[in-house]
């Protein structure tokens, strides 16, 4: 079984009961369930790291620490269904510590960092490698460029929302430390700005 075989209820995110079941199975010794859990929730953890704008190496370390910690707590987490929120919250707190840490340079607003894929490729290379049809590739470039132009708050929220599968608002709340109730309105506003940017670029 892989995570992607699970029923995906769009908007409300993935079937959280299944996450709970995978987690329980992993806790009971099922390595395949653990792998499925990692594959299913890694994009969420990664998006939390990226949303905090850490330098590349720092981001990699936080991602790893977050998963190492979950493995450690595998038999101690009392609410298996909330494992996505647990990961998001753990990643957020590690990100904040890295940002505060004296040994680090200041967290960067350098667009180069957010602009670079996690594996060091430029967005342009990544799009070329994806072998999307030219029209679609161009749309992806434009949407990504417009996203980068948004203010920090919008970039941060949207970077988490664009995790795959779509995170629940509870997970988004844990990822960013904002109230569940404020996510919808901010999302709406940020997407409206994104659309305006795209309209300026003549992209529909």
């Amino acid at each position, binding site marked *: 079984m892989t995570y992607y075989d699970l029923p995906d209820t769009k908007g409300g995110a993935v079937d959280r009961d299944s996450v709970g079941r995978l987690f329980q199975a992993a806790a009971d010794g099922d390595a395949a369930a*653990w792998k499925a859990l*990692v594959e299913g929730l890694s994009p969420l*953890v990664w998006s939390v790291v990226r949303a905090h704008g850490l330098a590349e190496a720092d981001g990699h*370390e936080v991602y790893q*620490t977050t998963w190492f910690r979950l493995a*450690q707590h595998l038999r101690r987490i009392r609410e298996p269904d909330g494992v996505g929120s647990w990961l998001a919250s753990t990643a957020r707190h590690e990100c904040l510590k890295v940002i505060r840490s*004296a040994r680090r340079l200041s967290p960067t607003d350098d667009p180069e960092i957010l602009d670079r894929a996690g594996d060091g490729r430029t967005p342009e290379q990544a799009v070329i490698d994806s072998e999307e049809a030219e029209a679609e590739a161009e749309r*992806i470039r434009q949407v990504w460029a417009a996203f980068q132009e948004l203010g920090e708050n919008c970039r941060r929220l949207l970077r988490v929302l664009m*995790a795959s599968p779509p995170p629940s608002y509870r997970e988004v709340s844990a990822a960013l430390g904002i109230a569940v109730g404020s996510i919808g309105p901010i999302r709406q506003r940020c997407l*409206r700005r994104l659309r305006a940017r795209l309209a300026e670029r003549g992209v529909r």
Partner: protein
Amino acid sequence: MNGGETPGGGRAGDDAIEDVLRHAAGIIDPVPAHLLQAAVEAYALASIEAELAELVFDSLTQSAPVRGTDRPRLLTFRGNGLTLDLEITAGRLVGQLLPPQPAEIELLGGRSPAAALTADAAGRFVCDRVAAGPFSLHCRAGGAVITTEWLTV
């Protein structure tokens, strides 16, 4: 820009453009493959037979950020009747095990192989090379074995 809905707006439009972003992120900024692999392999950590020592104090959550200074990171872990006080400054770790007693300690990092340390009769131990990154200590003292919660140093 006025506050009205632009064409293609509304709830369906919001979902559609978020999906395009999701697709773009999957291509432009995916989870690096080697990180995914490291997380899959972390399952081995779940089977370590040791009491978890929880992080009960971290100077980074207490102090205001001060940039450019090399202030020590102070950490306290507690579990199974043992306390570990750690002080990390510029890659150097000074530790104190309480109650004071000799112990075998392994320093686990994300990348490097484990380093073996020894706590003296007073429970003190030192490591001069602590690499930045994920960090955990595995400590065997008397009959007790504890492992500290992972964190990033």
